[in-house]
């Protein structure tokens, strides 16, 4: 029998330390909805989503009530739209947004294109439509894969995405560039990611699958408070134990959702996903390890330990692990990161170094409004190169804050939070970006 101490520990984790299930994401294959007529295609997409996801939100809420654990988001990810859009993809975007609203999910991901090696005509049409689509839709999220370890970097796509991000920021300038918060550029994108804005249902996925993302930075922070001053062996062990407990609950929720919906279980994503709430911060975990502010020397090492221990603890707690799996460091969604960036302790360059050892990349970073498309492409190229060479997923979700300069603040509200505008290296890289072509895939032996 479970003892009182264990019961109280679980209740404290949920009630005081912000432990929650971050998302149940239903992946839906839309390949069978392809149609040369865009409206008809959109309609088929809409009907299929409504058929498959009809009970998603209500089932999530029932599990939430019975287990008394918050399941913050119920979401949908779909086949990259460029794979089904044989003509103008914009009508499909409108139908997807309508389906998301109808189903009561806060985000639907998959307005995506996979172009690590090159672009199809459909990819090109989709890319061109992103600024307009993200300005006009509310819940649709977009992602573009521009590189992979096997294919190298598609520098034409990198160059194009710099322009697309700027146009998206301009199209949503009245909302502080909110469109860019719904747009991710990936290298080595994963097919079963449950987290937004980068979720899509990859071509290797089954007809449908339940993928669950867990959270709980507050719980890890609290556990580390108990071992203050002790060596890193103890820190790693404490994080592992905590991650195990968190992930077991994620697995339980995934199994329940899968059974009730009659949809196969896909993966649990072992993540520490922060929110802007105080006490739900990944940065505070790093600071608990002994850093005055996140960004101080030692930050990358602290994050490496954290990320690895979360995986080691979580991997035994779930029978299928996937998605992005690691600690997230989105600046605007983490109060500790916001504070560190505002204080000048955390710079873009340090963030880039941190992304070498954790998931996922330069995430939710506001840069000055006059940052050029080429500079944004340069930032994407650097980040994608880290992912390509190190055989990991990296991403860029960057928001040019139109009309604002370094030190100002952008505000997105809700889970997306707010962010200080961070300064960017002002030296020019446009001649580099204009070259285009492809950076070849890296060698996988002689590693040093």
């Amino acid at each position, binding site marked *: 029998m*479970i003892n*009182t101490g*264990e*019961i109280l520990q679980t209740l404290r984790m949920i009630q005081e330390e912000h432990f929650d299930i971050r998302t149940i994401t239903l992946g839906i294959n839309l390949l069978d909805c392809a149609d040369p007529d865009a409206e008809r295609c959109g309609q088929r997409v809409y009907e299929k989503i409504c058929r498959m996801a009809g009970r998603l939100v209500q089932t999530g809420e*029932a599990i939430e009530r019975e287990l008394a654990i918050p399941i913050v988001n119920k979401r949908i990810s779909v086949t990259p739209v460029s794979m089904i859009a044989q003509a103008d993809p914009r009508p499909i975007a409108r139908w997807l947004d309508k389906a998301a609203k109808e189903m009561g999910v806060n985000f639907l991901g998959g307005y995506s294109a996979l172009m690590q090696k090159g672009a199809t005509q459909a990819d090109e049409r989709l890319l061109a439509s992103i600024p307009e689509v993200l300005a006009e839709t509310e819940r649709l999220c977009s992602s573009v894969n521009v590189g992979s370890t096997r294919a190298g970097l598609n520098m034409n796509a990198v160059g194009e995405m710099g322009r697309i991000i700027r146009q998206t920021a301009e199209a949503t300038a009245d909302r502080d560039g909110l469109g860019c918060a719904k747009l991710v550029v990936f290298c080595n994108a994963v097919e079963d990611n449950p987290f937004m804005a980068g979720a899509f249902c990859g071509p290797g996925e089954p007809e449908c699958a339940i993928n669950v993302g867990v959270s709980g930075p507050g719980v890890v922070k609290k556990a580390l408070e108990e071992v203050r001053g002790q060596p890193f062996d103890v820190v790693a062990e404490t994080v592992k134990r905590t991650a195990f407990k968190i992930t*077991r609950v994620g697995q339980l929720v995934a199994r329940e959702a899968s059974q009730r919906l009659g949809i196969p279980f896909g993966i649990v994503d072992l993540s520490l996903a922060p929110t802007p709430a105080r006490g739900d911060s990944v940065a505070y975990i790093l600071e608990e390890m002994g850093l005055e502010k996140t960004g101080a020397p030692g930050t990358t090492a602290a994050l490496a330990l954290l990320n690895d221990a979360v995986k080691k603890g979580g991997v035994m707690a779930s029978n299928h692990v996937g998605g992005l799996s690691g600690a997230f460091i989105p600046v605007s969604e983490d109060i500790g990161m916001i504070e560190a960036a505002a204080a000048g302790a955390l710079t873009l360059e340090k963030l880039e170094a941190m992304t070498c050892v954790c998931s996922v990349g330069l995430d939710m970073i506001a840069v000055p409004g006059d940052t050029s498309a080429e500079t944004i492409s340069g930032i994407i190229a650097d980040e994608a190169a880290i992912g390509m060479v190190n055989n990991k997923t990296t991403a860029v979700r960057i928001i040019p804050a139109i009309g604002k300069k370094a030190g100002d603040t952008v505000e997105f509200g809700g889970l997306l939070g707010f962010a200080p505008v961070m300064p960017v290296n002002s030296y020019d890289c446009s001649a580099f970006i204009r070259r285009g072509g492809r950076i070849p895939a890296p060698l996988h032996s002689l590693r040093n």
Partner: protein
Amino acid sequence: MTKALISVTGLDTTGIIARVATRLSEMNINILDISQTILGGYFTMMMVVDLDGAHMDFSEIDAALQPVRDELQMSIHMQRMDIFDAMHRI
């Protein structure tokens, strides 16, 4: 067996256990374990119960506890035991 934890907290008064247990018994819910204490005038009780006898679903049972909540002016919270088993047992 569907086990649930029922936690009851609030200002101490006479007959809390009796009232909650009676309501559970009326629904044919068997009590497997009880621990109870008074902390600074606050009554705190945790009960582990078996819901299978009730032939009602979780939300109906929870709703059936509402009159007891109202009458005793206490917080009565029910959640499935699975979450504790998942977290603390391999």
